[in-house]
């Protein structure tokens, strides 16, 4: 039977020298940027007589900012710099305490530059451009990782606008890859904490062994300029259920350590059965204040919305002027002529061609009876007759830009003439590009407030006018529909929450569906497209969300006796229950998920450790549930 614990030696090193006069009152360990290492110190020799730090003969804000290390037994539990001092003065005395902290600037520099592979110098070069992993480009997520590695073995980024073609791949020395989570974390560590002056970075192998490497996970992730590494690591890791901490390998050696929240190997708290005779090997739980919540910030069904579906088609337009103006003298339709100035209603004649998608032009001409029918494109979803806008085509030209001859869309006019071929057979000329119009009339402007185009040249397009009743214009462009990419996943009733509770996540910036409809004139052309369908990735994402959110939560604190624990792994470990009392802390209907230790305060004066635990939650930046942070217990 064990009834006592010998308090271990606590040693404090200041500036690398053991300092018996410096006493550590407490030391804090934590996970992430919000709980960086901290220790509270008091300078007081054992005999108290001289050498005590007191409020006398000092410039309060000027003090020795030495490095401080604290050891418990043989383990280092704190490293920091003496960055603050706190004084308490009252009638009973003065106490000057020093706060040793590891601050964000100990993790390298702020994010400002992004490292690109420079094909000219064949070196990695930092530029003041945004750091975006797998950016959204032309309506889809593109990989922008170069496999060219620098001396630190980190990959560099491609400027995604520079890597569209095979010659560009060759010039830049590699084909762009998708950034995976381990590669991106490794990049951030070495791009910012390059010198590793105070803390060592992980190896790429260590990260690959822990972090998931699906390229579908990291999408359009932009790192904020001006942030230090701790905050950037939180932002990139938290959505996927991972965290990080500083671990102390030995005196003078610290390293970033990463862990999976809620699923790391569990530990038990120990408290013997009621009425048992104390054995301190089997009881260490002095105090506990925990809350389990089945519903707050939880859900068991999720709908993930991507962006609005975009579809490319070829649209035949109608005349955007009233029919009684058809007979206007052509001389009055020339731009800047007197008749053109004096009669604003004539300015659209033979120039404005519209889709009439909202019915704005119904009955303005005999042939316009109803709004353009988009039902074939929207099928099987309904659509609302409303104004839209022509967007750049999904079909790509040889230089990877949208295939078009006017602002990314392709405009053609109908030539009703017949020509005789070499074999004597007459064929109709048919659709011709606007490049075949006269130089003073083929300038085309794409309308901003409705689907349509405007011939903006000095002259009206006489070639089209000449077609008379057969005059037609069509465009091949993309329009946005009223429905969005959507995936629904439910795990109810396999949930600790008995009710069905759904949650909607708006992920318009992450997931896209862009399609070329068979009615596009480019179908069969052999041209490439920027078509994308992220539905499968959305399903993966939705399942990940439910992995994180179809959980009860257990949050709180507990206090264990003694100060000797395995501090190499305590942060990030999970607590599976209380042995001896038959209490379990599982939070998942499928098991294997427990609350995670995210903080520890070693209280040397009390010879105990206060632990803080919580349950993994996705960061919530895209979900309404994540924004409902308030506790309602």
């Amino acid at each position, binding site marked *: 039977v064990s009834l*006592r614990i*010998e308090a271990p030696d606590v040693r404090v090193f200041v500036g690398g020298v053991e300092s018996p006069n410096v006493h550590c009152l407490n030391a804090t360990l934590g996970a992430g940027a919000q709980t960086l290492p901290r220790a509270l110190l008091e300078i007081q020799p054992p005999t108290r007589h001289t050498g005590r730090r007191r409020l006398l003969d000092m410039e309060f804000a000027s003090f020795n900012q030495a490095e401080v290390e604290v050891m418990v037994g043989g383990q280092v539990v704190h490293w920091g710099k003496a960055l603050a001092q706190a004084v308490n003065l009252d009638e009973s005395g003065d106490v000057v305490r020093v706060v040793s902290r590891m601050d964000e600037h100990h993790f390298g520099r702020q994010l400002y530059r992004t490292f690109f592979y420079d094909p000219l110098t064949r070196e990695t070069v930092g530029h003041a451009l945004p750091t975006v992993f797998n950016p959204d480009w032309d309506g889809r997520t593109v990989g922008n990782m170069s496999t060219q590695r620098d001396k630190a073995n980190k990959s560099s980024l491609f400027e995604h606008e520079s890597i569209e073609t095979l010659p560009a791949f060759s010039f830049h020395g590699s084909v762009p890859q998708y950034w995976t989570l381990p590669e991106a974390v490794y990049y951030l560590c070495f791009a910012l904490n390059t010198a590793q002056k105070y803390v060592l970075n992980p190896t790429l192998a260590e990260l690959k062994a822990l972090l998931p490497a699906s390229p579908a996970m990291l999408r359009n992730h932009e790192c904020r300029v001006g942030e230090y590494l701790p905050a950037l690591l939180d932002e990139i890791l938290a959505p996927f259920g991972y965290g990080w901490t500083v671990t102390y390998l030995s005196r003078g050696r610290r390293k970033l350590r990463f862990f999976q929240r809620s699923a790391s190997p569990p530990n038990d708290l120990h*408290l013997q059965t009621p009425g*048992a005779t*104390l054995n301190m090997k089997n009881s260490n739980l*002095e105090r506990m204040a925990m809350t389990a919540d089945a519903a707050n910030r939880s859900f068991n069904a999720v709908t993930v919305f991507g962006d609005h579906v975009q579809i490319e088609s070829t649209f035949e337009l109608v005349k955007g002027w009233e029919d009684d103006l058809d007979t206007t003298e052509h001389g009055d339709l020339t731009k800047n002529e007197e008749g053109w100035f004096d009669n604003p209603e004539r300015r659209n004649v033979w120039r404005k061609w519209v889709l009439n998608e909202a019915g704005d032009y119904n009955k303005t001409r005999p042939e316009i009876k109803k709004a353009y029918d988009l039902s074939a494109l929207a099928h099987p979803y309904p659509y609302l007759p409303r104004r839209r806008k022509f967007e750049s085509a999904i079909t790509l030209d040889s230089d990877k830009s949208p295939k078009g001859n006017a602002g990314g869309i392709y405009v053609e006019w109908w030539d009703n003439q017949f020509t005789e071929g070499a074999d004597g057979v007459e064929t109709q000329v048919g659709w011709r590009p606007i490049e075949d119009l006269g130089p003073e009339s083929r300038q085309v402007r794409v309308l901003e407030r409705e689907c349509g185009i405007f011939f903006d040249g000095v002259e009206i397009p006489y070639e089209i006018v000449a077609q008379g009743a057969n005059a037609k214009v069509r465009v091949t462009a993309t329009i946005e529909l009223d429905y969005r990419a959507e995936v629904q996943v439910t795990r109810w009733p396999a949930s600790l929450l008995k009710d069905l509770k759904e949650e909607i996540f708006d992920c318009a910036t992450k997931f896209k569906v862009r399609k070329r409809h068979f009615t596009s004139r480019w179908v069969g052309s052999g041209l490439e497209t920027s078509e994308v369908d992220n539905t499968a990735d959305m399903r993966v994402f939705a399942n990940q969300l439910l992995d994180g959110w179809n959980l009860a939560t257990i949050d709180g604190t507990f206090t264990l*006796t003694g100060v000797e624990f395995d501090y190499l792994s305590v942060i990030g470990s999970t607590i599976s229950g209380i042995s001896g009392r038959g209490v379990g802390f599982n939070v998942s209907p499928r098991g294997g998920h427990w609350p995670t230790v995210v903080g520890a305060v070693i209280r040397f004066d009390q010879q105990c450790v206060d632990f803080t635990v919580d349950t993994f939650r996705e960061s919530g930046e895209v979900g309404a549930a994540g924004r409902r942070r308030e506790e309602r217990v």
Partner: protein
Amino acid sequence: MGLLTFNSKEIPGTTEAIVTGSPEFSSRRVRYWDVVGEGEIVGQNGGRDIVVQHLFHDGFETPQDLAAGFRDLNKLIRQHGRLILIADVGDDTFNEPYNNCTFDRYERTPLPGQQAATPIKDYAQTLFDDNGEADGGWFILLTLYFRQLLVPA
């Protein structure tokens, strides 16, 4: 009985007794809900109290002389240093230093049979100085409290 010196200053008079305890150690007793018994976490040894019974006399011919003696004694309060008691016990000389002591305070203590701790004069010449000369002056019994901060192992 003996001669008492603190921080190289003699405290005049005769030491009647010196009582030293064991060093105290840091500990915290812990109990766990619904578990029988109590545990403890123990740390290292701390300091200890030293209590001295001391007849304060130095041939003080008048109460004013005694008050002057107290003023000198007060100067030693809160000082930190070595406490030494030298006493002859039989054929041996008892000489034990106590390092790292702080003189916390003293109290006037009634002599056996006294109602209150007030000074009295040595009319009967029962007190002697270091040379064996009768004191004959005003005197009082004091209890001196020292704290030894670091006790040798």
